[in-house]
């Protein structure tokens, strides 16, 4: 019996420690800060106003089971009650709206038809803005049949707006329209910081209707400026502030698949952690470069390490996690790797399908062998 009681105490202590840890971690993630003298407290989660704590004094006279029916949070000047959930917390009544409160807007607390209080969700500081971290491809000379552009932002951006904020200028004067494919939903990554834009493939592929009517989006020997407007808002409504652009010149159409046999590579000495650098005769696709390479030893074990692009995506650099061992290695490249014009290792982007040659040469990956000695 004593044994059971001891175990029970031990279990309680462990549970208490666990609960304290959970509470501590949760309190790190969600913080509630008092807005002003109204006593309403805004809860912040990841810089978003995700809740409002209503002090007891506002709700003390209401029967607990009718609170959520009688109490409402509304936008200033709007009659509709905001959808969300009321629940008791240690500090008072917590209201969590379905979507976070919008910065810069004023919200009111109502009991039946009586306005009790109001609070403004502070707007972001003027200096608290997102920025454009990168535009890929990085090179400033690009093929006239360029297929994709990647925009990398510092923090989550507002979706569904890209065609309003990205423009392409030809020779510094003409604003081109219909250059990018209007995709809804847009191709944002899960944290909404990287956007992929396609130059309209229907205009790039020769003889397709859009190509015949509107011509190719880009022409060789021309200077273009890709402009990303400073008006573009992020997920919280802060704009980029600064309009940024990338100027590039187009050269001839690229209709040839990248050929791994034409790539060169260095040979790091065994026992060192020198990076392995693979150099291509042309820049390759930023997103695919980082995903399609693997190195295996002769016994098929994967060499672990990190890959990064370099020299305007004309090189890829592999830093091995451990010093190189002497021996035979295989570099395996997934055939879906593309160059800037969408030509992958198996087929050019704009192929003559009537020839039907490509199916016979289809391979999931290609290999290149090398030695460390």
């Amino acid at each position: 019996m004593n044994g059971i009681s001891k175990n029970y105490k031990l279990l309680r202590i462990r549970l208490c420690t666990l609960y304290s840890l959970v509470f501590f971690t949760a309190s790190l993630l969600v913080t509630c800060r008092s807005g002003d003298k109204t006593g309403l407290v805004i809860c912040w989660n990841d810089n978003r106003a995700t809740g409002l704590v209503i002090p007891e004094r506002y709700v003390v006279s209401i029967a607990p089971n009718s609170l959520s029916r009688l109490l409402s949070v509304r936008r200033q000047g709007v009659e509709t009650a905001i959808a969300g959930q009321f629940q008791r917390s240690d500090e008072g009544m917590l209201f969590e709206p379905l979507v976070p409160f919008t910065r810069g807007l004023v919200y009111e607390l109502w009991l039946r038809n009586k306005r009790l209080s109001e609070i403004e969700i502070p707007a972001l500081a003027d200096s608290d803005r997102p920025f454009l971290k990168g535009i890929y491809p990085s090179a400033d000379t690009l093929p006239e049949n360029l297929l994709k552009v990647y925009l990398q932002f510092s923090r989550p951006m507002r979706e569904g707006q890209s065609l309003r904020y990205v423009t392409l200028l030809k020779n510094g004067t003409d604003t081109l329209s219909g250059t990018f494919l209007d995709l809804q939903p847009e191709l944002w990554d899960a944290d909404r910081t990287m956007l992929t834009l396609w130059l309209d493939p229907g205009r790039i592929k020769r003889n397709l209707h859009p190509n015949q009517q509107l011509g190719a989006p880009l022409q060789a020997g021309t200077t273009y400026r890709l402009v990303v407007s400073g008006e573009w808002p992020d997920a919280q409504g802060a704009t980029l502030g600064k309009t940024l652009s990338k100027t590039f010149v187009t050269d001839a159409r690229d209709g040839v698949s990248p050929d791994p046999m034409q790539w060169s590579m260095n040979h790091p000495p065994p026992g060192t952690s020198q990076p392995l650098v693979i150099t291509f005769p042309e820049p390759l696709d930023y997103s695919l470069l980082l995903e399609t390479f693997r190195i295996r030893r002769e016994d098929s074990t994967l060499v672990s390490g990190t890959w990064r692009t370099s020299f305007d995506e004309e090189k890829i650099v592999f830093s091995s996690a451990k010093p190189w061992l002497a021996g035979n290695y295989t570099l395996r490249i997934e055939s879906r790797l593309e160059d800037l014009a969408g030509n992958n290792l198996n087929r050019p982007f704009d192929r003559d399908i009537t020839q039907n040659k490509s199916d016979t040469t289809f391979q999931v990956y290609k290999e290149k062998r090398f030695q460390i000695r």
Partner: protein
Amino acid sequence: MKKLYAVLALGVAGLSLLATTTRPVANQYGMVVGTPAIKSINALTFGPDGILFIGDGKNAAVFAVDTKDANSVEKASPVEVKNIDEKIAALLGTDVKNITIQDIAVNPKSKNVYCAVQSSDGTPVLLKVEGDKLTPVSLKEVPFSTVTLANAPAEDAKGSRGESLRIASISDMGFSDGKVMVTGLSNQEFGSTFRSIPFPFTNTQDQASLEIYHAAHAKYETMSPIRTFTTTEIKGKKYLLASYTCTPLVLFPLDELKAGKHVKGRTVAEMGSGNSPLDMVILKKGNESFLLMANSNRPVFKVKYKSLEDYQGALTTPVTESFATAGVDFVSLPVTNVIQLDKLDDSRMVLLQRRSNGSLDLWTSSERYL
């Protein structure tokens, strides 16, 4: 000692009770109660008994959620919500510019309209439209199941490079004959994926590559992404009717869409380029059926179903005239700027339309449009 046995017996009984009450019990569709971690709602479609399929591009997954909205309604009441965007913004406590309506879907059983909304910070919201009222649908503690959309085969899944740069999007989703059908696009390869996923979800999903004939191109083409699709029956045979970015309308026999299979479609109409199809439904008036299609840069098209059935050929000659059309005939309805549409009942559809006065309205069509 007896006391100890009694305590132990009580403990065991308590534990077994706890186990039976907390163990998730799967319903007939293999769903267990929980809170699905939905990151985005790109597409909605209904399955049997009020089961709602939610296409989540950010998770590259489809969630099946039991809405418990399964009361059969024979005669649907029309919905009409004027300035729906303003009403949604008020309900969510924000400005109209901060919300986007992603999709609408009608529950074929209860005839209730559901609407997926995304707030500017990315939070997805599901709303139910009843008459002119909007109510949030809670996705907390609901019976659900999920299936991850298989990516293109990677040579090995485990890398040491952190998060993938691959982005998936879901362009349209449908349910027919026990299967959820999903079309999508990735940022890494320009090509259409068509997936057919049996429901209740299992570990299997078929991924077929579809080939269409571009009348303008005068060539076969596998790369174009499907924008919208529906399923239909022509002369007793089931088909996938898909529309692509440059608006060809293509029929694929459904029984041929199997894993790894390469299926050639039959292009039955070129509905003019410079336009993207947005949504399509099939409606009926008397004995006659019609295909209705909303477009980005054209009015709503109406195609007599009989002409689709009768058109046994395939467009194999180029369309030469700019913005011209070919194949089956269609008429343009005097309804423009329709962003979404879904079938309410046999003869009516629900439309989300930006009216000429700028207001965004959800309304119900009448037989007059057929």
